């Protein structure tokens, strides 16, 4: 990260503060950055709802997102390898995937509760729906972008089907899979609020926290919560990028 890469976010914050001071925007609806900072402080020390502190919300949401993410990858990557490899599988499963893909996560809630009950699994399922499709689609396109000569080379070197999958298709698609994982992680976070609509057992979750702040009209805490999700998302994105550049040094 370059030092000037924070100029624009910081500049935006300063302008926002100035606008808030000037009274051009009603601060009861869009609080100033300083108010948001105070809101973040309240989230950390007072909690929202009270005694439900920020770090626990973060831990629970991370757990849900990661569970959804892992399953999104565990199912999306192998399925993507198969669908990228066999145009028949793609032809058969493709329309199915395309029908399910645009369905809003909120609409899945009743089904999520039916299938997975209240709690972690339901929430993770909603997040899974956000992660799964980008991972799947990028894995497919990753496999399709592999130079077919590599497959032939592997075949003349006596590679069996398993070797082809694990030692040619998978590594060849990895760069694209990583792109899908990063997009999927972003969308996973995007579906967090919907996921936590399925009912939280322990009273924790960032989406739940934001929705509670919304219930009691604390825009400062809503905004602080949004930015916290944003920053966590940014950090995870960076970690994935770092992992990516370690894993695919060959590119």
């Amino acid at each position, binding site marked *: 990260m370059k030092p000037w890469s924070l100029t624009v976010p910081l500049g935006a914050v300063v302008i926002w503060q100035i606008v808030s001071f000037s009274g051009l925007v009603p601060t*009861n609806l869009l609080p100033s950055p300083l108010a948001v900072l105070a809101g973040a402080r309240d989230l950390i020390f007072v909690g929202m709802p009270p005694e439900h502190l920020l770090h626990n919300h973060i831990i629970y949401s991370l757990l849900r997102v990661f569970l959804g993410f892992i399953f999104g990858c565990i199912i999306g990557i192998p399925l993507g390898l198969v669908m990228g490899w066999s145009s028949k599988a793609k032809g058969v499963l493709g329309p199915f995937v395309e029908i399910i893909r645009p369905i809003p996560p909120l609409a899945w809630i009743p089904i999520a*509760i039916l299938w997975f009950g209240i709690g972690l699994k339901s929430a993770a399922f909603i997040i899974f729906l956000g992660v799964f499709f980008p991972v799947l689609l990028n894995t497919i396109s990753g496999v399709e972008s592999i130079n077919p000569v590599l497959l032939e080379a592997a075949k003349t070197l006596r590679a069996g089907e398993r070797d082809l999958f694990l030692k040619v298709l998978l590594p060849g698609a990895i760069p694209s899979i990583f792109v899908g994982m990063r997009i999927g992680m972003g969308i996973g976070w995007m579906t967090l609020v919907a996921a936590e609509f399925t009912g939280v*057992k322990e009273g924790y979750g960032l989406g739940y926290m934001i929705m509670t702040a919304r219930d009691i009209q604390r825009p400062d805490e809503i905004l602080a919560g949004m930015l916290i999700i944003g920053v966590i998302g940014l950090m995870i994105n960076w970690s994935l990028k770092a992992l990516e550049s370690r894993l695919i040094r060959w590119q």
Partner: protein
Amino acid sequence: HTAFADQKPIRIGYLQNDIHQLACWVAIEKGFYRAEGLDVQVAGIFKAGPEEMSAFAARALDMGYVGEAPATTAVANGVARVSVVAQVNTEGSGLMVGKNSAVHHVKDLVGKIVAVPGHSTVQDFLLKKAFLKSEVDQKSVRIIVLKPPEMIGASGTDQISAFIAWEPYPAKAITMGAGRLLLSSRDIWRDHPCCVLVADDRFIAERPDDVRAMVRVHVRATDYLNADTGEALRIAVKYTGMDDETLRLAMRNVRYTYEISREGELEYVRFLSGLRYINVSDPESFVNRFLQGVFLKEITGR
């Protein structure tokens, strides 16, 4: 009571931030469940009634505090099999206008936009009743659906002329200096049903003693909060995170009671059938099945 010790815990649910369900929080905070020998587990905190009813349908809950409206539609539409075992509150909603609004009477809403929290909600029904009472043609008012948290902001920016919501939103609008109460729900329909305590029918059949004990706790908690408003307020602040001025105002507008309002439910079922939201051919027998006052009667003797 210790006979239940080896039984599975009772899974309950409630709605986050709905102060109608204060009795539930009082019972938890004051340890009334434990005192009754009940092993109660909060299995789900929900943002809205339909999700809680989905949880009943998925057999993830045994009992729950929920709005009478979603419970009724869920049962009438065959989604969940639950019965009302006690009332939680009546009244407790308000029809609000902007603080400096020129609207001073329901009639003034003609040609304006009014927000309700959802179709088939009690508030939806209350608004229509208010129109009926004031002889306002429903079609002359534009009713839109908006979630209560957004209502205050929207009425503050003149996006809507009025809204009807459950407490604490009307009170919050007032303390924020954004709104004024046009009509409380008491003015529209005295003692109208609102939230209820429901139990899964299979749970009632299998563990009637637990249901009875739960109702006993509920009665105790309701009596407690009506008696000691100060402590109830403290608990409300803790569970919602809202300021106590708002909550004090809000609680004044809610009637906490466990007495089941049969007439109210009957009227409500007729209303929903009339709008074709549900399809109940014989409201009387539906209500007789849906309201199971026996446990309450055993406890209160009424």
